[in-house]
């Protein structure tokens, strides 16, 4: 059985700057993968390439064995890949309910009906059910621009999940959210993701969040994948702790599940 997502030698440069290089990843259905790395390590570039926001300079991206390189974001979404953003991408002047109604229409119905009202009883009921699932139904009539960050993040993810993606990419779902609300937000999101059985990649800086929710971790460093393995193994890797986490983490590792880090952080040759 082929992987749900497979990238082969993926690379992206911006002029002389190489933001991502030699990215080889394989994600299977139902996996929950945490993506870690310091700022500029290539995490968002990787997500942007997989979701069609950026075209890779080289390499291949396969979803269910079919190449999606060069496809527009909408086509990538239709191929089964959804995403949320570090800065929630919403319709700020519309109400929360209208955001979901529009999203339902555009991502589920996909027929740009000309004269049928958007606010039908049936659609409103459905939209309110969705908001309730994400525990933000109480904000239904509020204008998005006035919402707290956590609610915006949940709404962003709720809207992205409407197309029932088989692979969901969450770009820093807890960034800008108060520390005390991070786990509540992740709990709500991961409950929804598990129910949908979608494979999930989430970019995260908070290692507590990563440890709690990720089955597997991809550690990015300097545009490359430094480590790829189970959460415990990657987070206990001294190189990852030094170069990515920035401090020591006490993690117990099952020695039977070893792996090699793939990047040499600095090497001096012919000195």
């Amino acid at each position, binding site marked *: 059985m082929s992987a749900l997502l497979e990238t082969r030698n993926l690379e992206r440069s911006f002029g002389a700057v190489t933001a991502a290089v030699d990215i080889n990843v394989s994600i299977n259905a139902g996996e929950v993968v945490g993506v870690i790395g310091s700022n500029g390590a290539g995490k968002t570039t990787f997500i942007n390439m997989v*979701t069609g926001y950026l075209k890779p300079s080289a390499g291949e991206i396969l979803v269910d064995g079919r190449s999606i390189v060069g496809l*527009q*974001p*909408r086509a990538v*979404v*239709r191929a089964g890949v*959804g*995403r949320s*953003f570090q800065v929630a*991408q*919403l*319709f*700020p*002047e*519309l109400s929360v309910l*209208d955001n979901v*109604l*529009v*999203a339902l*229409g*555009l*991502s589920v*119905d*996909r*027929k*740009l*009906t*000309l*004269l*049928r*009202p*958007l*606010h039908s009883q049936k659609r409103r009921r459905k939209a309110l059910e969705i908001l309730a699932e994400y525990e933000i139904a109480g904000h239904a009539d509020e204008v998005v621009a006035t919402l707290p960050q956590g609610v915006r993040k949940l709404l962003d993810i709720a*809207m*992205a999940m*409407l*197309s029932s993606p088989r692979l969901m990419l969450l770009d820093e779902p807890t960034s800008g959210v108060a520390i005390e609300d991070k786990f509540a937000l992740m709990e709500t999101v991961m409950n929804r993701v598990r129910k949908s059985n979608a494979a999930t990649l989430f970019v995260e800086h908070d290692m507590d969040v990563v440890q709690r929710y990720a089955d597997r971790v991809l550690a990015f460093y300097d545009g490359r994948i430094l480590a790829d393995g189970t959460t415990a193994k990657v987070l206990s890797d001294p190189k990852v702790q030094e170069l990515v986490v920035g401090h020591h983490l006490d993690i117990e590792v099952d020695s039977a599940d070893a792996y090699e880090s793939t990047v040499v952080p600095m090497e001096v040759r012919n000195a």
Partner: protein
Amino acid sequence: MQTKSIFLLIGGALGLFVLGLLVPEWLSYLMIIAMGKGIVVLGVVLLMRAGLVSFGQGLYYCIGAYVAGTLTQFAGISDVLLILLASIAASVLVAALVGLLLCRYRGIFFAMFSMAFSMILYGLLVRSSVLGSTDGFNVLRPSLLGWVPTDDASSDLVLAVAVVMVMILGSLMWLYLRSLSGYAGEAVRENEIRVEYLGTSVFRIIYTKYLIAAALAGIGGTVTALVSGHVDPEMAYWTTSGEFVFIALMGGTSHVAAPMVGAGLFELLRTYAFAIAPYTWQMILGSTLLLIIIFLPSGLWSLVSRFSRQARG
């Protein structure tokens, strides 16, 4: 649409028509011109709600007018329904081609490109001696389903056509703005990235709106040509397109009636400003727009919205 709304609509149309018959001829003429321009501005508003300001709707306004002119003058076709259909077809056809390029641009580029296309038509018409060059040519009296009205009844026929068009197009637009397609415009204005990541083509949404706006401008141009009995290249000149934007700002974009109110007041204001100050009437128009932008940034219709909100408590 509810039965009450339909009765209100028919009542409103009849009222407007009777008013047009009762007022002096110059005012009736002004009403029809305002309705023609109001229809064009409906399209301008549609684009504005999607975040696009078109300074080139004069292109389709002029096409609609010239279709009316050429059909009556050169092809011997005077049936108003056929003329309207031909105007819509010609406007949409041109928009379908121009839109392929234009709808990829945003902001000032969209505004300037739209103006450029309109000025290309202006340039072509000015150099076309067959179509009367800068003088244009006269549009013959319209007929309706074989009925050829007398001179007096001719303007009543155009009045009726304008009223019916305003009511039908206004109602359709009212429904459209409440539909998914209507909201999709606002969604595009606010966040194109999210629209794309919902699996929908932003280009398709904007392109559709551009075609609708072109059809509306074509209809508006036809109504204007039929009531004035004359067409000329000025209809494609950039100041004409600017006038439509002016009216849209004046009336506001929040309701389908706003362009009609804006167009009516604009025509009245211009007429009186010209009568009072023939050499500085533009200053009066400019000052009025300035005051509206400062004190009523959402246009004159925001006053109606405010009063109706207060009335509801």
